[in-house]
Structures are given as C-alpha cells and as structure tokens.
C-alpha cells in the first residue's frame, strides 16, 4: 500500500473563524500527527489562491489525502473536491472539518472553541486515511419533466420546457388549470384582468403538443433519482399509466389563511366580513354588495390578517398590501360616493410600480388608519341595527394614539398566504424538506433559491414562499432553464456512495433486505448472499449498521472511517496550550 500523505488546511474565513479559533494553535497541534505531510492556515481556503495552494502542495509533496477545516461541507465540500480532481487526485480523498457553523459561530470561549476545532480536525485526519477512490457514475437524463401543479407557476414552467421541444407531464389536483390566480379579478399594480392573462396561458398549455395534462390527478409515489424518476398514475377509467421523467418541478401553490381563528374579526359570524378571495369573486361577478344585496356606504379593508403576528404566521405574505390598494381603487371606481377605510399595520409597497400605486391610491380619498399588529388588532362588532351602519371597528390609531370607531357595511380581510395543505405529502413524495412555516426549503436561500437538496427536484411559485404573479413566473422560468440545461447536457455524474456486499463474509441472514427502504437489496439464492442494486440504492447506510457480520460496506461512510473519526475526536492528544 502506498504511503499516506495528508495535507491539512485550516481556513480563517477572514475573521469569521480566526476570531474565535486560534488557527495557528490548531495547525501546531495537528502537524505532528502521523501521516500529516503538510499543515497550513490561510485567510480564505475557498478562494482561488487558497485552492491553488492545495493543488500546488498535492503536486509538490505528493499528497494523496486532503483535509480542509473551514465552513460546513454543505457549502464548500464540492469546491475542494473539484480542486483535488484538478490536481489529479480522486475527489473522494477529501474530508472537511466544520469549524465555522459548528464551532466559531456558536461558541464564545476561544480556548474551548480552539480545543474543539483541534478535535474535529484530528477526527477528519483519522477518517481521511481510510478514504478510498470512488468513481462517479454517469447516468443519462430522461428528457421528460414532471410538473406538479397547474397554477401560473406550474404552467409557465411547463410552457417554457415544452416550447423548447421537450415533453412535459403536467399533473393538476383539481379539475381546472389556473390555480389561485385564475380566481382573481384584476391584478396589481396595472389592473390587468387576471382572466385575460391566465386564459390564453391555459389554452396554450392545453393545446401544446409537448404537454400531457393529467387532471384531476394526484401523485402518490415517485421512485428513482435525478435523471431517472418514475411514477405510476391511476387514471379515472381505472387504467394505470407509467411515466418516466428526468426532472421534477414542484408548483403546488398556496391556500388562503382561515380568518375564523382570529376571534376579534368575527369572520363567519358577521356575514358582511369577507376574505380578500371572497371579495375578488364579488368583483369578478361585477357588483359590490352586502349580504342583503345593498350597496355598502362604508367599506373597510384590514391588512395583515394572519400575517406578521406570532400567533398566526410570523412572515409577511407580500401581496396583500398591494391587493388592498387595488381593492380601494376598484371600490372607488364602482362606488364613487362611498367611504373607504384602509386599516393597515405597515404599508409594504416594494416592487416595480407598487409605490406608485400607493401614491396614486392616496389621492383617491381613501382614509388610511394604522393599527398595532402585535398588541392591538381591531375588533369588529355588529351594531345590531341600532345605528345607520351595520358594523363598527374599534382600535387605537397609531399616529394619533386615539381610540377610534370606524363604521363599516362591508369589511374585507386581507388574508395571509399559507403553503398548500398537501405540501407535507408532496414533500415526502418528492423527497424535499419544509421550513418551519411549511413552505419548501430551497437548496440555498440566496445562491440557489429554485433548486432543493434533492437533485433534479425544483420548487417554484408560492409553495416556496409567498409571492406575486411576476415573481412566480420568474422563478418558474428559472427552474425551466435549469431543467433544460440538464436535458441539453444529457448526462449527469453522481457520487457512488452506495452500499456493497462482501460475498465472502455475508452469512445470508437477509436482515439488510428487511431494512432497506428502497428494495435495493435482494437475496441471491444460488450464492446464498445478499446483492445490492446500485441504481436503486441511495446510500443511507442503514443496511451497514444492521449487518451482523460486517459484510455490507456503506461506501464513504464505512465502519472503519467513522470509528477512526470517533477515535480522533476523543484522542487525549487534543488539547489547547496556552502560549
């Protein structure tokens, strides 16, 4: 066996790491460990000079293993693996120690943080000794795409891909395409008719030769991995159809918040308190009226219903403020003599043309009143016919600090956007994660807001976060471009971190067969041993930890690698020496 030569690099990450971890001390502590040939620290290991330093050392010192102590491997593992490959080393001969997210940023005692960093680096050095060269597997990308959800986002993505000449399977749960946007009357800030925007889009999608629509249809299971997914759909006539596709775009959309949770608004009890969506339908019908069919004299609009309040949702739903201004404009045109009260917490008019809409609306005799969204939600009560108006809204106005009563014949609640009730199921089916408030998590919140941690699965529209129509379409088209890029290249390379069986020591107990969630392990009766199907194996390693004889190796997470990592972590040599 060739002599092991390890290069160890400790990153300062500017002051991010260096402020809390004594990087010189870390290098001093580990440089005498067996097999460490080079140990250095540098300002930014991920920078070009940092990577060049590694490449140069590999060539000059004939290194065959590399350890970088820096940020989380979730951020830069790939960067450094590529640097290894550039230097002619197998990229798997690399291990990262996370001393930023899991040391420097979370601890306050420099001595203890440094000692912990030494332990983590020692563990990585121990582990990397047992790393082995693994080849990537090249797989072909199926050129078809599955789009889940037929709203604006889903349809935009589908059209973009179909127009490029590629097959799209569009699955919609309801009977109609168009989603939430199809239920709107006009859109902000330009007052385009939503129907006039959406209808041609639906027609394009329905007529497109490259789009096959399944509705009403629910996806129950998806098998496979990036490039080669498949699913079986149960058609209404009882038949089944098997679909194969290389990428998935999730566009499951939103659902409106149910305001009956907020008792002070009396939604569901007072018939003239309606949600923004119900008001859209009223506008679409062409007549603003109370439940008794009368023209309302006083109309009140309440913002932030279910948004920006820890009791409901902490996030801002982004579209309600501008929709409220749109309503005010529509009410003013339809009922020129009415009183319009806009009860808001903060007016959020970001985005192109939105601040202009606010200015324009403020000149239309709309009375803006500010309430306290945290401690002073308005109370809507009925006058029981004792006054000229049917309802009164009571709250403390925040500029005057005065208790006010606003008369209302019709109240519109600007309800929050929530992720769809099906999001949880879809997250399991598509193998993606949700953040605390049930929207799907993107791969990186800034640098990769369209992809997910599951390769080949993208999230677009309001299933990722509340957003308006143009933002949904931008995201959808971005995802479509990503999908088309993979189809264009035609193949992808994947890491082979699958399980493998040592047939000589497999005793044929089949425990591994029983624990594999992907049915990737089968029993070969002739040989009396288990066999792993590497296409189906996703490398979770649960078979490895259940095998009684140690016949199964979880590649890149072998027993030997992890055990030596533990030994390094707990080595009595890990210490901090006061200089």
């Amino acid at each position: 066996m060739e002599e092991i030569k390890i290069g160890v690099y400790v990153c300062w990450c500017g002051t991010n790491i260096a402020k809390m971890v004594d990087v010189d001390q870390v290098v001093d502590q580990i440089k005498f460990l067996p097999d460490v040939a080079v140990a250095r620290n540098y300002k930014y290991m991920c920078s070009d000079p940092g990577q060049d330093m590694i490449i140069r050392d590999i060539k000059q010192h004939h290194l065959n293993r590399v350890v970088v102590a820096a940020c989380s491997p979730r951020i830069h593992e790939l960067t450094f693996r590529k640097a290894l490959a550039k230097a002619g080393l197998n990229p798997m001969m690399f291990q990262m120690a996370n001393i930023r997210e899991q040391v420097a940023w979370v601890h306050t005692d420099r001595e203890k943080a440094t000692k912990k960093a030494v332990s983590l680096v020692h563990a990585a050095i121990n582990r990397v000794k047992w790393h082995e060269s693994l080849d990537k597997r090249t797989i072909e990308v199926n050129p078809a795409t599955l789009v889940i959800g037929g709203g604006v986002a889903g349809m935009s993505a589908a059209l973009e891909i179909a127009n490029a000449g590629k097959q799209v399977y569009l699955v919609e749960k309801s009977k109609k395409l168009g989603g939430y946007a199809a239920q709107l009357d006009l859109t902000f800030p330009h007052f385009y008719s939503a129907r006039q925007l959406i209808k041609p889009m639906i027609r394009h999608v329905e007529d497109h030769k490259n789009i096959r629509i399944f509705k009403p249809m629910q996806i129950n299971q998806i098998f496979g991995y990036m490039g080669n997914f498949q699913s079986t759909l149960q058609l209404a006539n009882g038949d089944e159809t098997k679909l194969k596709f290389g990428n998935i775009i999730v566009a499951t959309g939103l659902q409106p918040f149910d305001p009956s949770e907020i008792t002070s608004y009396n939604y569901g009890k007072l018939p003239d308190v309606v949600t923004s969506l119900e008001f859209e339908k009223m506008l679409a019908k062409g007549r603003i009226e109370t439940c008794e069919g009368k023209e309302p004299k006083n109309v009140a609009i309440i913002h932030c219903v279910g948004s920006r309040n820890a009791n409901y949702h902490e996030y801002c739903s982004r579209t309600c403020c501008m929709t409220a201004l749109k309503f005010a404009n529509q009410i003013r045109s339809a009922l020129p003599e009415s009183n319009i009260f806009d009860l808001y917490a903060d007016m959020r008019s970001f985005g192109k043309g939105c601040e202009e809409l606010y200015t324009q609306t403020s000149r239309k005799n709309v009375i803006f009143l500010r309430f306290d969204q945290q401690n002073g939600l308005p109370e809507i009560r009925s006058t029981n016919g004792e006054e000229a108006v049917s309802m009164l809204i009571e709250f403390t106005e925040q500029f005057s600090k005065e208790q006010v009563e606003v008369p209302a014949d019709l109240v519109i609640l600007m309800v929050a956007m929530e992720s769809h009730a099906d999001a949880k199921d879809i997250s399991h089916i598509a193998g993606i994660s949700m953040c605390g408030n049930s929207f799907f998590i993107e791969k990186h919140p800034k640098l990769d807001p369209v992809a997910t941690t599951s390769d080949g699965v993208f999230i677009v529209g309001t299933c990722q976060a509340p957003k308006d129509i143009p933002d949904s379409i931008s995201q959808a088209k971005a995802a479509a471009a990503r999908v088309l890029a993979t189809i264009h290249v035609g193949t992808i390379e994947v890491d082979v971190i699958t399980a493998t069986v040592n047939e000589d020591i497999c005793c044929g107990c089949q425990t591994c067969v029983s624990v594999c969630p992907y049915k990737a392990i089968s029993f070969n009766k002739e040989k009396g041993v288990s066999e792993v199907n590497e296409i189906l194996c996703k490398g979770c390693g649960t078979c490895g930890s259940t095998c009684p004889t140690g016949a199964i190796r979880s590649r890149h997470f072998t027993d030997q690698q992890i055990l030596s990592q533990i030994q390094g972590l707990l080595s009595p040599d890990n210490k901090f020496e006061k200089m």
Partner: protein
Amino acid sequence: MDFEPTIVSFLCNWCSYTGADLAGTSRMKYSPNIRIIRVMCSGRIDPTFVLEAFKNGADGVLLCGCHPGDCHYQSGNYKCLRRYNMLKKYFVQLGIRPERIRLDWISASEGKQFANLADSFTETIRHLGPCKIKNVIETYT
C-alpha cells in the same frame, strides 16, 4: 476544576446537521462540549459507533435525526429509534447510565432547538459526572 463533559453527537445529513448549521448561521450560542459527526441518515448510526465513543472517553452521546415521518430515506429514523431503545437496555447491563445517551429529532429549520438541546444535554451529563467506562475497560483488558 469544574467537570467539562465530552459529548459525541451523530447527526443525519439532511435534517439535523443542516439544523446545527442553521444554529451557526443564525449565530446562536451553545456549549462547546458537543462534537458532531455527520452521517447520511440516523439509520446509519451503528450501535458500535456509540459504544466506540464511550470506550474512547465520551461522557455522553447525542443522536439526532429527522422528525418521525420526515426521514429523507423514508424510515431510517425509526430504525435509529429501535437501536436507541435497545442500546439503553444494554447500557444498564454494561453499567452505563442510560441517560448518557439521548435521541432527539431536529429538522433543518430547528437551529434554536438544536442549540437548546446541546445545552440541556450538556447539563444532564455534567450533572451525571464523568463516565468511567473507559477506565474500567483500560483496567480490565
């Protein structure tokens, strides 16, 4: 000197390790006694890893996986739960306090929960004092 426990923590890649990273990006502070080892799935945590940690001087071992029903690999966390329950019984026979091992669920968005868990588990182990199993093994083998 106060007893500073050494704790080894095995975290699954998809939920818990990401949650621990989030604690970092959010600059939450927790005790430096926890040292993390990443595995792809909590189902990969072989009981021998836990025993190896105690054999090498760990005072406590913390296992974290995705919440029930949320496992990236469908059911690895349930297998981890079974092994955890088995280990606790086994610990009693070995003479290790079963409180020295803990399994909890941390999702990718639960940075705060991870920081709190790290602190509360550290306090539990601090209260139990050093684990002597390493000395026992060194004396009798």
